[in-house]
C-alpha cells in the first residue's frame, strides 16, 4: 500500500466505487483532487502513487495534471484567488478590480504575497457573469465562490485569513 492509499483509504475506496472495475482510470481526476488536499499541489510522489493505484504510467497522470488548470504541479500561496476577467465580467469592471487588488497587495497577477498566503491569478469564465466582480478561492480543501466583490471586501477577506493563520500558528506553538 503506497502513501496516498494509506492516507486516504476510505476516500479512495469510495471514489473507485463510482466507476466500473475495468475502467478505474476514470478515478484519476478525483484522486488528483485528494492528492492536492494537503499542500495545494500534486507532488511527483503522489503522481506515482496514483499511477500505481490506477495501473497507469506516471507520465499519463502528469499529462492530466498539465492539461487541467485546477491541478497544480507547483506550490503557490495557501489561498489561490482566481479572478474572472473574461468578457462579461470585464464589461462590469473586473480588469480594474484585478489590477487594484494586486496593487493593494503589492504583487502582479500570477504572483504570491511575500508571506506565502495569497496568490492572485486571472481565470477564465466562472459562470457568475451577473455577479461580477467575482473570484474563486482554491485551497487544498476545495473551492469557494465570492461574488459581487469590491477591493475592500476582498482585502477584508484576506485579512480574516491572516488572522486565522496567526491564531492557528499560536495554537500549535
Amino acid at each position, binding site marked *: 500500500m503506497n502513501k496516498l492509499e494509506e492516507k486516504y483509504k476510505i476516500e479512495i475506496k469510495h471514489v473507485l466505487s*463510482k466507476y*466500473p472495475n475495468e*475502467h478505474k*482510470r*476514470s*478515478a*484519476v*481526476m*478525483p484522486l*488528483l*483532487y485528494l492528492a492536492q488536499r494537503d499542500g495545494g499541489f500534486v507532488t511527483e510522489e503522489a503522481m506515482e502513487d496514483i499511477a500505481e493505484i*490506477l495501473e*497507469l504510467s506516471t507520465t499519463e497522470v502528469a*499529462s*492530466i495534471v498539465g*492539461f*487541467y*488548470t*485546477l*491541478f497544480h504541479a507547483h506550490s503557490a500561496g495557501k489561498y489561490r484567488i482566481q479572478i474572472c476577467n*473574461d*468578457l*462579461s465580467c*470585464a*464589461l*462590469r469592471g473586473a480588469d480594474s478590480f484585478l489590477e487594484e487588488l494586486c496593487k493593494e497587495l503589492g504583487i502582479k497577477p500570477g504572483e504570491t504575497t511575500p508571506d506565502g498566503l495569497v496568490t492572485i491569478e486571472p481565470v*477564465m*469564465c*466562472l*459562470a*457568475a*457573469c*451577473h455577479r461580477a466582480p467575482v473570484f*474563486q478561492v482554491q485551497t487544498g480543501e*476545495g*473551492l*469557494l*465562490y465570492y461574488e459581487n466583490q469590491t477591493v475592500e471586501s476582498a482585502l477584508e477577506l484576506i485579512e480574516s485569513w491572516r488572522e486565522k493563520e496567526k491564531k492557528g500558528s499560536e495554537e500549535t506553538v
Partner: protein
Amino acid sequence: MNEYILLRHRTIPNIKDLKEYQAIGGFEAFKKSVTSMTPSEVTDIVKASGLRGRGGAGFPTGLKWSFMDNKNWPHYVIANADESEPGTFKDREIMENNPFQFLEGVAISSFAVGANAAYIYLRGEFWQIAHFLDDKIAELEQMGILGDKLFGTDYSLHIYTHLGAGAYICGEETALLESLEGKRGQPRLRPPFPPSYGLYGKPTVVNNVETLTNVPMILEHGANWYKSIGTEDSAGVKIFSLSGRVKKPGNYELPFGTTFRELIFEHGGGIIDDRAIKAIMPAGASSSLIVADDKALDTPMDYASVRTLGADLGSASVIVIDDSVSIDWVINKTIHFFKHESCGKCTPCREGNYWMQHLIERIHAGVGEQHEVELLYNVAKNIQGKCFCALGEFSTMAVTTGIERFPQDFEDKAKSSIDG
C-alpha cells in the same frame, strides 16, 4: 411569466427540500415512468414535446434518445454540467436551487434509454454544487427513489457526480467522455456519435442540465402543453443568461420567441447609465456579433429567427455591449479565452488562435496597421471549416463578424498607429 417551469425555486422557496418537492408532485413522473410505461413511450412523449437540447446545439432531445444502439449494452446517461461558456450561468442556478427536478430529469432520461448508471459531469469550479448534489442523491437512495429495484420493479439506477478540473473544452460532449474516462479532454472524431459509441465505448446520451430539468414537467403535463409554449420551431421556455452592460443582469426564464428588446430593456432594465446599445452576443463568447439596431432588437429569440441575423442562439447567453466599448476590445477578450481553452489537438485551432492573439494584441494596443486587421480576418476565415470540433469554429465567430459589421472600430485603431 406567472409560472416557472425550470426556475421554480423563485416561487417555491423550499423546493430544494425533498419533502416539499414531493408535496408538489415531485418524482411522480419518474415513478409513473418506471412502474407503468415502457422506455419508448417516455421517449415518444419527449420527442412529441419538441424539446431541443439547451446546451447550444438545439438538437431534438427525444430523437437523440431514440438513437441509442439497443444491440450494445450497458447504456449510460451523462448530464453535462460543465457550464463554462463566458456569459452562461443558468445550470448553476438550477442545480443550486431546484436540484431534485434536475435529478428527476436525469432519472427519467436514464429509464428512457435503459441506463442503470448516470454521471453528472460538473466543471471543477462547481465543487460546492457537487457536494450538495451528492447529499441530495444520498437522500434519494435512502428514500428508495434511486438505487436497486426501484418501486418494486427490476429497474435500478445509480447517479454519480464527477468533477472536471477547469477545461472549457470538456463541455464538448466527446471531450467530456474522454475526460470522464480519465484522459485529457480532447474531442473524438464524430461519427460515431455517443448514442452508438460513448462512455467506455458504450451507447451514451449526453444532455445539458437545463434540457433534463424540463423533462419531469413534460411528463407531468404532456407534450401538447409544452409544445403550446414558445414558437413552432423552438418549443417551450429557455433560461436566458443576461450579462454585460445592462442594469439588471441575471437569469430570465422566458418563452422562446421573446424579443431581444423585451429581454434587455424590460427584464434587464436597459443599458447602464442609459447609454446606447451597440452590439449583442446571443450565445456567449462563441457568438457572432449582432449590430443592435431596431431590426435586431425586435427579432424573436428562437433558433430560426436568430439565424436570420447571421448568428446563432446557442445557449442563449446574451452579452450586451454598449457604445462605450470598442469591438477590438471585445474580440481581444474572446480570442484570449479561446487561445487559453484550445485543447491543442488540431492545428487550425491551436495555431490559429495563437496567431489571432498576436494580431489582436497589436491592433488593440494601437500599434497594428490596417493590413494586420485584414490578416487577422484572413486567419480567422482560414480556421473556419477546418477544425476538429466546434470550439475552433466558435473562436472565429466574433472575429469575422466583428470586423465585418463594425469596421470603423478597427479602422480607428489602425489609423492611430499611422498618425502616431
